[in-house]
């Protein structure tokens, strides 16, 4: 049985709604705490989980995710811990991907990473600083282990790159809706709609069927509803990190806020 995220998107589509994809870095606030938080997100309505593998030099992340990743690294989180977190979250039956920068994967060993991710029940990998034209080794390993390959497209992507990238994806394609780093934003980007439309037209053009998820900036149910109006999935990261950062050592309060936020976002993707 494949752990691919495809099934979750098909379910959402059948229900006439967008999917909710939630991100948290593993090891934040600590490894068990992050697993508990992600299980809470699953329980409260996330359809797909992205587990961040913290990296020391996260050039695509804003201050919120940087702070969480730094705390996780200071807490000593290891790649092996992230794989254990994948195993725990994937055991809920919810498709679980890792999202990370390239160097930790290369360092672990590309083939070994793919194998261990698949063995943990992981669905695949999202690669913010690896594009398909630089990703031959990963593509081969992911294909060999039946894993999703989620690459990013951006408002600046040319039509040729949209086609090259979407053809290389499996699971979904991640549309970064703003030109900028991760972080909650007060209003959604007006670049998102046109990017999703271009991406969908590209996929239709080569005869594919690939869900388009939109990420970067969504922080509440209303924004989620707006994005769900044109995208197949709403991807939320910094907004999930925020309540845990704010709650500090009061874990129960953090989880309660996380649950409330997830429920709000889950309502949003159903209202879009």
């Amino acid at each position, binding site marked *: 049985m494949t752990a691919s995220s495809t099934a979750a998107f098909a379910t959402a589509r059948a229900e006439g709604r967008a999917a909710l994809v939630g991100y948290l870095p593993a090891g934040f606030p600590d490894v068990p705490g992050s697993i508990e938080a992600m299980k809470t997100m699953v329980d409260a309505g996330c359809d797909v989980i992205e587990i961040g593998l913290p990296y020391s*030099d996260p050039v695509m992340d804003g201050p919120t995710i940087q702070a969480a990743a730094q705390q996780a690294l200071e807490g000593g989180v290891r790649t092996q811990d992230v794989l254990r977190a994948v195993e725990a979250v994937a055991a809920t039956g919810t498709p679980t991907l890792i999202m990370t920068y390239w160097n930790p994967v290369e360092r672990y060993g590309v083939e070994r990473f793919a194998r261990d991710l698949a063995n943990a029940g992981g669905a695949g990998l999202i690669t913010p600083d690896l594009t398909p034209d630089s990703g031959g080794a990963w593509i081969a390993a992911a294909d060999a282990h039946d894993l999703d390959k989620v690459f990013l497209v951006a408002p600046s992507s040319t039509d040729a*790159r949209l086609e090259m990238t979407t053809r290389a994806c499996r699971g979904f394609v991640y549309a970064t809706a703003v*030109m900028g780093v991760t972080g909650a934003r007060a209003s959604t980007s007006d670049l998102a709609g046109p990017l999703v439309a271009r991406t969908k037209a590209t996929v239709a053009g080569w005869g594919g069927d690939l869900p388009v998820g939109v990420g970067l900036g969504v922080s509440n149910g209303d924004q989620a509803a707006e994005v769900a109006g044109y995208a197949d999935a709403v991807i939320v990261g910094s907004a999930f990190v925020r309540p845990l950062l704010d709650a500090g050592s009061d874990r129960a309060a953090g989880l309660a806020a996380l649950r409330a936020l997830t429920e709000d976002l889950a309502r949003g993707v159903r209202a879009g």
Partner: protein
Amino acid sequence: MSTGTPGGFWGPDETGHFVSGDVQWGGRFMPEALIAELDELTAVWTDAMADPEFLDEFARLLREYAGVPSLLYEATRLSEHAGARILLKREDLNHTGAHKIRNVLGQALLAKRMGKTRLIAETGAGQHGVATATAAAYLGLECAVYMGKVDTERQALNVARMNLLGAEVIAVDSGSMTLKDAINEAIRDWVASVEHTAYCFGTAAGPHPFPAMVRDFCRGIGDEARVQVLEQFGALPDIVTACVGGGSNAIGMFTAFLDDADVRIVGFEAGGDGVETPRHAATIHAGEVGVLHGARTYVLQDEDGQTIESHSISAGLDYPGVGPQHSQLAHLGRADYQPVTDAEAMDALALLARTEGIICAIESAHAVAGSLRLAAENPGATILINLSGRGDKDMGTAIEWFGLASSDVDPGETPGGAR
């Protein structure tokens, strides 16, 4: 072997890789959001390098504004002390005080060609930041410089210079608060501002085309020195040396000599407290193959691929990565790379000051120190050192290191008497 132009023997190839054996150094490990811009930059740069008008303008600016070609100077008293003939390529005499102005003028002209209105840069020692602020002032562009908080403190003079030149200096307090984190923050700015902003990258590292582009803007150092040394001394040097942070001054010097098989090429990395301690920045010596800031190269990293913080007394060498072509040259064995400790560098700085009346940058002092070691191993050899910058910015560090604040200290033995 052909010269180091794209497509030539040394590379990079079309995809931005410097190849050695089965390793493809360099490349482009970057967010998709920046790929279109990097493609555009590659195209504009390639086009400009074939445009006589651009090349004339670049040459004119270097000559009339930056004071290039820099002098080749025989350091006779230092030579006597060293037991070898020491030649210094005086990049410290360039406008703004280092080799960095060459790269910056090239990139700033490209930015203008691309219609950009704003320059951003990262800086370690502040020399690249000062050079960028200078070019921005000269061309009427907005300028923001990212600098690790630690570096803003140890290079306070350069912060003041950048401010005076009208640039905004942004102190970066994430991670190790040094050069690598300044690069992270500049990339974050660029992802959001790329439409009107050019990222004036300060060293021959990062994603393609930066390693090749920065090299080609800096290669005048070696091209000039090769002609100068032949004219002045009638023969090529036995050994050519430079300090290596990200590697721009070194690759700028080395490129002209890569095809001269008899010329030995040696780069000196920051050994900090010593490579046997965890506090150093000897990336090639002690690092392992990885990806940092968009390029495959040697990286100081742990078992999980997390970057290890580097340490050096010189902010400009305090970087846990290195330009990918240096990794290639090391891997091919064409150049070798050796660590020089803080203490060795500071001794060399004092020695150069006392013997030649030249106060160099602490970065450059690493090249001097390493070259003194080579001189001892190769008596009578001719050693050409790239003296990449001047030491004004480092006086705070020197005061502290040598205890110069009190009046009765001697920063090292004074070798020899009066000239």
